[in-house]
């Protein structure tokens, strides 16, 4: 299965919208993209996981690596996710304490949400 990776750049941050399944097969593509973004000087990254159907520890590892990379440039990497089955993977591994997980892209970008 292909992993969808869409980059949406704005003034505040760069959004990386991920679609599909993140596992041992697809995680290297996600890693590559995160490395590329940071290398381009995009140090504030919002990884939108709303289109992700499945994520295992290989995907968690790549996100941890991305967070480390962003923070080493005084940036940050935050997540957007509302799917309980994905959030659960972060909860079990304690990574909810490492990542900020927002429930919408607007909340992650700090822009007012439509009421």
């Amino acid at each position, binding site marked *: *299965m292909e992993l969808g990776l869409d980059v949406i750049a704005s003034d505040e941050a760069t959004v990386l919208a991920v679609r599909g*399944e993140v*596992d*041992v*097969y697809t995680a290297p593509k996600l890693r590559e993209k995160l490395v590329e973004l940071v290398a381009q000087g995009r140090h504030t990254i919002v990884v939108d996981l709303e289109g992700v159907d*499945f994520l*295992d*520890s*290989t995907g*968690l*590892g*790549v996100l*941890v*690596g991305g*967070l*480390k990379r962003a*923070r080493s440039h005084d940036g940050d990497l935050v997540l957007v996710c509302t799917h*309980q*089955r994905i959030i659960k*993977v972060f909860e*079990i*591994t*304690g*990574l909810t*304490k*490492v990542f900020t997980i927002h429930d919408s892209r607007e909340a992650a970008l700090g822009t007012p949400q439509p009421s």
Partner: protein
Amino acid sequence: MTVADLASSVVELEIPARGEYVGLARLVVSSLASSRRTLADDRVDDLKLALSEACTNAIEAHAEVGTEEVVVVRLVEGDDRLEVEVEDRGPGFDPSTLPEHPPVTDPERLNFERGLGIPLIRSLVDEVSFARVEQGMAVRMVMFCGPVTDLDDEEELAWS
């Protein structure tokens, strides 16, 4: 359950030890679990994730020793359980001596991108055991659940 019954309830899947096949293994296991067992959807997801972790470890173990052999995924259906076994031909490991990560609040935690698979498996399935087999390692994961009975089928028909 007799030995003959048990033997007839085994599904075995051999996958090449490459990442692109893990998704296929997940599909087979989750389809069997959701169509043949009384397992709630979120528990099927748990099993799917545990299976993915076990297959990933197996594939990495094969890469470590450079073997071209297949990874075996075995599904054994019992009266009160579904067992999923992943058998590799890797170097084997001792699950009791896995290194611990620093606490999540420690900035050092970000230096660890790997090693989450086994702890995940342990918390996702009802029972897990790791055993050295003749040529590698076998991870056996158990979910307690009964088979879907004929009664359930009739109920489904009545509702449809």
